[in-house]
């Protein structure tokens, strides 16, 4: 056995984890090698020293501090809107619901895939090459009905409701803010400013709604995550 091999097994040997021949080989090497014997003596002294380090008693104020912080968290719970508490409960039950959500997503995907594949042959049939007669062009819609205005109005209503949600969630996040660290506050502000910039830069309609949804998701996370609410610190 070389010194390198012996040193690699020294910790296991000293902790009594090497049995039979493996232990005896290390022991044999230690008998013959002065340097490794010294290393073993040092490590054993260290191990023993660590084992007998005196326990450190927690200060009497610790329990009071814990109770105070729990009380603070409970007050924060009570101030949280009901839908947020429900969301937090859902979040706790995540493992089971997560599986359910996955199964649901798989079913939706399968259905979507089948529907697409069912539509494909229909499109082929509709191809002019396969039809004996040219198709009649559809009659133009009467000029009096302008659908684009209604669509634009619907999109504007949807955007407005997104904006209202953002206002509501921002207020909730403000409540939570009291429990965040300075780092976290800064990170939050920067991110929200960036997302709002993206909303302003997005064109009307779907792109803007998409940008709103990104901000809403971020605010929901910021306002509901328990670890953020507790200490604003530990991840």
């Amino acid at each position: 056995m070389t010194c390198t091999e012996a040193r690699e097994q020294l910790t296991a040997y000293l902790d009594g984890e090497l049995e039979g021949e493996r232990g005896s080989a290390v022991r044999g090497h230690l008998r013959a090698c002065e340097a490794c014997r010294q290393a073993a003596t040092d490590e054993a002294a260290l191990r023993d020293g660590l084992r007998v380090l005196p326990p450190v008693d927690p200060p009497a104020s610790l329990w009071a501090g814990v109770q105070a912080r729990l009380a603070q968290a409970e007050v924060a719970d009570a101030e949280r809107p009901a839908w947020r508490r429900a969301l937090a409960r859902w979040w706790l039950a995540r493992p089971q619901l997560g599986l359910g959500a996955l199964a649901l997503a798989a079913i939706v995907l399968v259905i979507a895939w089948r529907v697409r594949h069912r539509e494909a042959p229909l499109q082929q049939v509709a191809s002019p090459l396969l039809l004996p007669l040219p198709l009649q062009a559809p009659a133009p819609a009467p000029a009096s009905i302008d659908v684009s205005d209604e669509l634009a109005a619907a999109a504007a209503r949807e955007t407005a409701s997104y904006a209202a949600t953002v206002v509501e969630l921002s207020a909730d996040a403000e409540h939570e803010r009291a429990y965040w660290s300075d780092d976290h506050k800064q990170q939050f502000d920067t991110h929200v400013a960036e997302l709002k910039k993206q909303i302003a830069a997005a064109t009307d309609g779907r792109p803007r709604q998409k940008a709103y949804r990104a901000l809403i998701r971020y605010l929901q996370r910021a306002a509901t995550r328990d670890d953020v609410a507790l200490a604003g610190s530990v991840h």
Partner: protein
Amino acid sequence: MTETAVVDSLPSPVLAEPRPRVPAVLADDAQLIAACRRGEARAMEMLYHQYKRRVFGMAHRIVGPNDAEEVAQEVFVRVYRGLAAFRGDSALSTWIYRLTVNAALSYLARRARRQEIAVDDAMPDVPAPPVAERDPGLAARIETALGQLPAGYRAILVLHDVEGLSHEECAAILECRVGTCKSQLHKARARMRELLAPIGVAP
């Protein structure tokens, strides 16, 4: 202002206690957990007393004496608040020690990021306790050297050598393989010997 000071300003009404539905003696972890989930003060205090020394001791040796109380507070708050989500995949003790190590290590990371505290201050200034018979100063030197170790090594030394947990328990707490745990311990002890070498670790 500290967290405690913030709460001190809140009114502290006498809260109605949940009525215990369990016998006077909480036989096992499952009963203790159930009672804590219901918010029974007696069970919560029992759990605290059961784990306070180890939680505080680990925090003390990983983050140093100045910040140990804050970390330990955070751990217990996370324990009580997290019990609802505790599924019992591991033993209660393993889960609590994992929370402790994680809270201590992330506290160190935050402290390093903020650079509020110089590296030298991270070394705990511990008075020499009268323990080691052969070398009265050894314990103090070991505490000092512990404070100079990289945080990961400190964690494994505290769990395995100081707290006397098995490799299997350490691996479960640190969420790594048993083999990784053993090799980390080996490297940690080697680093400790280097740190102690100038003054001699052997009696």
